[in-house]
């Protein structure tokens, strides 16, 4: 009877977790660059009970001996869904939209202390960038957006950022004077666009940013600012600079919305919630059975 209790409880826990995942998706309906996660379930282990003493008396049996009783379900995985989000036109020159399975790279400071320069690289799909007081291209948390050499991009005062695809699969950066279109500074650097071969290994670290799990990073993900370890860290792991064969594109003045489909999420939520209700009903029935057993004495 305790087994019935625990089976139901395991199921309810899993359903609760799925509802958590769904509500997180719904909460990020309007978060630019948000990629939804999808929860799927997995059965728990099975106990085999040998309740037959005599094989000769098991006439009509169709399965191998013993009873194999399961013990409920658990959340199997929360898979990242990388389908593109809706495109939104903003007309702002620092807003960038990526097409294809690629990411921007930002540099996140791990400490607020100016003396401590430890930071880690992060990947993001959210291209809602802006310029900080020194003209550096930063994301909405103030993390530097990096070029292909992992350096911050500084836009000179009075100029506007232009990102253009020269047809060789790289996103080149140019700075254009909005008052004089012929006044162009060409630093001949590309924006860092990164392709992750297996995006399922990406770890969500909040603020629509991802990192690679620790086993893909040297020294627990922290990089010496002076060192050039980033290439090893990223190619030795799984993220590599945009490669041939991967189709991608970049658009300026546009943003990628989240890829959450509210109708689908609400349908899933409804279904999960009803199953949760049914499980609590099952719990109640099991409880009544225990009550009956307790009242055996009358």
């Amino acid at each position, binding site marked *: *009877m305790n*087994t*019935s*209790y625990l*089976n*139901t409880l*395991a*199921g*309810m826990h899993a*359903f609760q977790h799925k509802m958590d995942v769904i509500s997180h998706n719904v909460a990020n309906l309007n978060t630019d660059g948000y990629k939804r996660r*999808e929860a*799927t*379930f997995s*059965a*728990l*282990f*099975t106990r085999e009970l040998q*309740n037959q003493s005599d094989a000769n008396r*098991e006439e009509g*049996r*169709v*399965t*191998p001996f013993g*009873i*194999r*009783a*399961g*013990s*409920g*379900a658990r959340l*199997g*995985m929360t*898979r990242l869904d*990388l*389908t593109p989000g809706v495109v939104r036109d903003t007309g702002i020159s620092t807003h960038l939209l990526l097409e294809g*399975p690629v990411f921007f790279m930002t540099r996140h400071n791990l400490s607020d202390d100016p003396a401590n320069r430890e930071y880690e690289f992060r990947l993001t799909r959210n291209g809602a960038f802006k310029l900080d007081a020194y003209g550096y291209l930063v994301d909405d948390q103030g993390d530097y957006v990096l070029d292909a050499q992992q350096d911050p991009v500084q836009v000179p005062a009075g100029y506007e950022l232009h990102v253009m695809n020269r047809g060789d699969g790289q996103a080149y950066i140019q700075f254009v004077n909005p008052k004089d279109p012929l006044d162009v500074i060409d630093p001949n650097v590309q924006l860092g666009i990164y392709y992750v*071969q*297996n*995006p*399922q*290994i990406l770890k969500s670290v909040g603020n629509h940013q991802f990192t690679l*799990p620790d*086993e*893909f990073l040297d020294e627990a993900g922290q990089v010496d600012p002076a060192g050039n370890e980033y290439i090893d860290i990223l190619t030795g792991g*799984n993220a590599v600079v945009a490669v*041939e*064969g991967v189709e991608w594109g970049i658009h300026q003045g546009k943003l990628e919305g989240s890829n959450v489909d509210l109708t689908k999420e609400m349908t899933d939520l409804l*279904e*999960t919630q009803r*199953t949760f209700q*049914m499980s609590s009903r*099952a719990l109640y*029935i*099991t409880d009544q*059975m225990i009550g*009956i*057993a307790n*009242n*055996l004495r*009358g």
Partner: protein
Amino acid sequence: MLRGAYSAISGMIAQDRRQEALTNNLSNIHTPGYKRDDAVMRSFPEYLLQRIRDQEQITVNGKTMPGQPVKIGALSHGVYTQELIPYFSQGDLVETGNPFDVAIYDAELLPQEADGRLVKPSLFFTVQTRDGDVRYTRNGNWTLDNENKLVTAEGHLVLNENGEPIQIENQNFTVDADGVIRVPTDDPNVQEEVARLALIGVNNPLLMVKEGNNVYRWEGAEEPFNAFIAQDAKFELRQGYQERSNVDPTQTIADMMQVLRLYEANQKTFQAYDRTLQNLNEIGRL
């Protein structure tokens, strides 16, 4: 003493086992490829009752012998849950659009004779556990591990026809109805073949033993057959679909309510016996 008391309690224990199976089914109602268990009850073997030291005389070899046992008839001592039979019917297919979801549709396979009964064959994917054992599963809800190998949600490696793990370097892979996995190449008209899924079939899926974590162990005598080679095997593999569990929520809740009432009825029977014994004690009181 009173034999029926034990029958009543055995009825309660059997219903308890059934409730365990039902709660497990309900918890796995959203587990992809899960097959529900049906509890089958069986009566305990019957006993022959005898009346001892009978007043009636019986005749053996011409001699009359009083006070010998006389047969009354058979009596069963109760009920037990004999087996939990997995019910291998096709689960509903639901579209997810995720390339890592592959569903088996084998509802149109014709029943075959196995152990003197007609049983519908069933198809399974072949996986390898981290201990190196080969197991079978209906759960086509996969992802890639950190070595880009195709794995189930539990981390079991999905195997190809040659019994090797499948490595996929490109997220835009396709799985066709014949289980061939292809990845795009630089030429848009050419696709490179990576591997072919090991899809196996068994004529009597009831000999598949549930091991937990959505996998089965094969206990049959003959080896499972390769579904792609088998004649007349009418089935489909569908990428971007998930096979849902075949648990029916209405049926499950109705069964649970029945379990509860049967449990209660057995308790009442036991209480009736208890009162009989109580009355016996009252009679004996001075």
